[in-house]
């Protein structure tokens, strides 16, 4: 790296650039237009490990899982045409959930561009709406700078996915290789300077507040603001609630963690949004699943919005005091400017709501009456206890996702990996693979429904080949449960195309050499969960849960957060 220059091929320049960026692991799938790079990788196997997924979508989700738990850039590699288009779902997911990812795609030779050549697709055009930045490289000499810029943009500021499309002739061409890391792009300001006046204005509001309330999102994790965040809430005594992307930024059982926001969040955090006097949003973007009807959302409160991306300010909810900049710095400045406080009575209001939710929802979900089918909640509760809240939980999308996040007792920073903004079914299995490769020392549990599991079930092959230790929990209700719940509540129980006739998942697991168990009776559940968590190596546990169980509380679409339903 740096210093001297020597002449190498474009394909080798790709690999050497990745190494220069510190990449030692990537996920991908070979094909015609990317074969030269794969050929070059063959010589660098001791420096870059390549994980062959079973589908390019799996590679993107694995790269996301890797990025989300490590904070590093996830990397994936695919060929042109279908290889490239198969990346799009993962790229879109990474874009909406601000996940740093670099995707490198092969492209047909430059003289064939635009001619409908074999496996040609305009992936730069297709990926443009869902990438933070993308570029096509047609000359070998442009490869190092393009990759350097890609990594810089993916990781800096509000992170996101970047795609670099490299024509086959560029891979075969020659370049005087000299790698220089990118440190700035003149049109791009990743770290806006924090306005000290905004900090003072925010502190004044917070100091005068009787009922301040804090909402935290992914920004706290992305900003690496663990200590600053905790110090701020502990100094001010402000109750804090999380979005699903912010989950695990604060231990679930922290005394100021009042729970989950949004459509299936906790009762108090939603209800009391409309009773607080100052609302402090930290690194979150007021997704519609969090706000419900915005015209009846926290209209009584002064809103302070700590946010890195200026385009998020006033996008959904008007901020009285926007604090634009990295929340790690902003929280530290704010901590210095605020008074120590406790808001015991106000916190008590949350606890009172908890008691009601506990009585109406949680008790029956975690400890159902005998004779009732098993609930997702009781399974998660047992998994949480057996793993002591220390596993990385990777969830798919649907009812099980809501239940897992509601009832798992997250103790570890950055231990929640889920598809939040895009809601991508099929995310969990490959994302769990990526998460495990990033942190082999931690247990990784993928919680998946019977529907989502079958969307990327082929990644069992990746687990088989790499012998990676992933625990797979299938919460099987033989339905596309969340859609069925909506059909139940809002479409007169007209269960249109939501019932699943499932295969024998244990036989499938066996085919991939993965040990498994299936629990159909409650009396076997606790022992099965223990075995699941303690097993050495990959393991699949399928639990048959109530077919028509619904997730509550719930804020129906179009309703206000204060209209949250407990039943």
């Amino acid at each position, binding site marked *: 790296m740096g210093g001297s220059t020597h002449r190498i091929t474009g394909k080798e320049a790709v690999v050497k650039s990745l190494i220069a960026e510190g990449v030692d692991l990537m996920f991908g799938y070979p094909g015609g237009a990317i074969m030269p790079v794969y050929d070059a990788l063959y010589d660098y196997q001791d420096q870059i490990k390549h994980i062959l997924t079973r589908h390019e979508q799996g590679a993107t989700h694995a790269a996301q899982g890797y990025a989300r738990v490590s904070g590093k850039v996830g990397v994936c590699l695919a060929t042109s045409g279908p290889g490239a288009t198969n990346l799009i779902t993962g790229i879109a997911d990474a874009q909406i959930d601000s996940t740093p990812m670099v995707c490198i795609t092969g492209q047909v030779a430059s003289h064939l561009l635009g001619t409908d050549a074999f496996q040609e697709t305009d992936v*730069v*055009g297709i990926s*443009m*709406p869902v990438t*933070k*930045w*993308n570029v*096509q490289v047609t000359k070998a000499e442009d490869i190092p700078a393009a990759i350097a810029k890609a990594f810089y*943009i993916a990781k800096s500021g509000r992170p996101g996915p970047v795609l670099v499309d490299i024509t086959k002739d560029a891979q075969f061409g020659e370049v005087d290789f000299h790698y220089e890391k990118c*440190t*700035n*792009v*003149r*049109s*791009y*300001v*990743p*770290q*806006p*300077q924090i306005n000290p006046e905004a900090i003072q204005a925010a502190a004044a509001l917070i100091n005068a507040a009787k009922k301040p309330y804090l909402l935290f999102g992914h920004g706290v994790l992305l900003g690496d603001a663990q200590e600053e965040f905790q110090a701020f809430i502990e100094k001010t005594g402000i109750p804090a609630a999380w979005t699903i992307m912010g989950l695990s930024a604060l231990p679930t059982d922290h005394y100021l963690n009042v729970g989950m926001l949004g459509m299936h969040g906790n009762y108090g955090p939603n209800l009391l949004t409309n009773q607080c006097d100052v609302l402090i949003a930290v690194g979150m973007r007021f997704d519609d699943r969090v706000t419900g009807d915005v015209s009846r959302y926290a209209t009584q409160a002064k809103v302070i919005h700590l946010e890195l*991306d*200026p*385009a998020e*300010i*006033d*996008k959904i909810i008007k901020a009285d005091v926007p604090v634009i900049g990295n929340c790690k710095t902003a929280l530290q400045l704010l901590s210095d400017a605020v008074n120590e406080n406790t808001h015991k009575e106000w916190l008590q209001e949350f606890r009172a709501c908890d008691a009601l939710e506990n009585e109406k929802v949680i008790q029956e979900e975690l400890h159902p009456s005998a004779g009732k089918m098993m609930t997702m909640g009781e399974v998660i509760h047992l998994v949480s206890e057996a793993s002591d809240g220390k596993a990385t939980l990777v969830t798919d999308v649907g009812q099980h996702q809501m239940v897992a996040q509601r009832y798992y007792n997250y103790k570890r920073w950055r231990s929640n990996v889920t598809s939040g903004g895009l809601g991508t079914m099929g995310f969990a299995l490959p994302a769990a693979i990526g998460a495990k490769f990033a942190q082999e020392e931690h247990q990784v549990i993928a919680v998946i429904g019977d529907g989502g599991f079958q969307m990327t079930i082929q990644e069992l092959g990746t687990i088989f080949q790499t012998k990676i230790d992933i625990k797979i929990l299938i919460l099987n209700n033989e339905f596309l449960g969340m859609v069925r719940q909506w059909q139940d509540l809002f479409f007169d129980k007209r269960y249109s195309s939501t019932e699943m006739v499932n295969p024998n998942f244990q036989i499938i697991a066996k085919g991939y050499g993965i040990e498994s168990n299936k629990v159909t009776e409650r009396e076997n559940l606790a022992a099965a969960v223990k075995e699941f968590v303690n097993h050495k190596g990959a393991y699949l546990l399928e639990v048959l849960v109530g077919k028509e169980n619904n997730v509550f509380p719930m804020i129906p679409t179009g309703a206000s957060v204060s209209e949250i339903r407990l039943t």
Partner: protein
Amino acid sequence: MMAKEYTLSVFTEDQIGLLNRVSIIFTRRHINIESITASESEVKGVHRYTIVVNESEDLVIKVVAQLDKQVAIVKAFYHETSEIVYQEIALFKVATSILAAGGVAEKIVRKHHARVLSFETDYTIIEKTGHKEETQELFDELEPYGILEFVRSGRVAITKPMKEFKDYLAEIELASTH
């Protein structure tokens, strides 16, 4: 909120595909672009898009923020019509015969201070520069005599506020290194 005419000035790096990135931000919100022009600005290597939309100010502010956050967009601005000086250009092709007789069509052209760019036996090309209402007025008056071909450019606009773009560029360039 009331829809109004706004003119956006978007300063970008000179990169392939940027027009697509710019237009996506409008299409995903189902905003119709009334007119768009692109050219190099006074700063070498920086391109300037002039985009006209009819939308509420609230929405325009959000669109400008989403344009601004694109990596290769240096800066995006929006202006009310009163804050800009703007022009459009229209070209008309008419049969020379309608002008030749010294008849009404010639008077119309004179009245509108239009310019004759090319005068051929069969046809004449007339240029009219002005606001859309002005070029449209000429169009409406010539139409009864037969317009063989008509084209109107998008708007180009210069803003009245005095801060120069290169000062913004210097600020952003400095901020990009933080």
